[in-house]
């Protein structure tokens, strides 16, 4: 099996990657992260093994770009006054804007982990690969993030 033409790879993965980046980096950063993700993917593309999981591969790159974006922006809080435009149709019910605002407040690595798991649909092992940590650490990270989110939701009236 050979690698598909890059255009097809881009067409197949652009929507999941974009959705992931909105979740992991925010609507305002998503576009820049998307450019950087696919340009980096294009550079590396000829050396990718044809039998690798291209979806996990590109989400891995996107996850790193999302974390880079957080680092570049520093730890200053997101401007609360710019909620993203509501999506026309969400795949399985309306997006929970409040919940995602809480996700946006998580530390970068936890936020990215949540997005990789639930929006990117990656396994714990794939998340570990993307974030250069052990599978246990990925699980722990996710568990902590979810605990925090559940707690924060109870606190908000």
């Amino acid at each position, binding site marked *: 099996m050979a690698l*598909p033409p*890059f255009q097809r790879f881009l067409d197949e993965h652009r929507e999941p990657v974009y959705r992931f980046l909105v979740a992991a980096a925010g609507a305002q950063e998503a576009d820049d992260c998307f450019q950087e993700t696919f*340009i980096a993917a294009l550079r590396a593309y*000829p050396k990718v093994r044809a039998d690798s999981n291209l979806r996990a591969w590109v989400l891995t790159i996107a996850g790193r770009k999302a974390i880079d974006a957080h680092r570049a922006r520093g730890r200053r809080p997101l401007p609360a006054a710019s909620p993203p435009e509501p999506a026309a149709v969400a*795949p399985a019910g309306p997006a929970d804007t409040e919940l995602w605002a809480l996700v946006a407040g998580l530390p970068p690595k936890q936020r990215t982990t949540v997005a990789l798991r639930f929006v990117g649909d990656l396994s714990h092992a794939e998340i570990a690969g993307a974030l250069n940590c052990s599978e246990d650490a990925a699980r722990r990270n996710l568990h902590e993030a979810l605990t925090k989110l559940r707690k924060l939701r109870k606190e908000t009236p």
Partner: protein
Amino acid sequence: MTTDIEDLLRRGPAGDDPAAARDAAATVATRADEMGLIDVAYAELDSPLGALVAAVSAKGLVRLAYENGRRDAVLEDLATRVSPRVLEAPARLDPLRRELDEYWDGRRKRFDVALDLRLTRPGFTRRILTAATQIPFGEYSTYLGVAERAGSPRAVRAAGNALGSNPIAIVVPCHRVLRTGGGLGGYTGGLQRKEFLLGLEHTLGS
């Protein structure tokens, strides 16, 4: 009535509409071209003979094929044999598009775009196709003629096969090769297309 938080997260965030992803992907192609990261730039072109798939490498035109529902197969072949960095970049095909438009209008008799013959096997096949490029507009040769010109006068049938493998239709004018005696011979794009091209070039005096 509370939906679990994991299910809510699976629905994704707001603001991820497909149009934004499509626009962002188009920008990727433009930027990749500016950065010189596209090894094979392709576009689909309209023509009187139906849609064509055209592809250029850094060296020149590497593929011009009748689409005929084969677009994906053509792109896969390019990904395998040239480079997987294949992206749609219509602006890169503008010079060819202009020359072809002039050709269809009868205003151009010779193509000037650079050619990249890497998809033709070196040796005999390439010699045959090179011989075909030397047949002028409005004239024709025979399978025997190009075989002779390629230095293999007895390889008439093989010459036909080599011409049939032409990766650059129209611009490498394999349609200008006929049977000895004037029979049309074969054509990968179908004989109707061969007849159309010969008619456009007034080759058979009609």
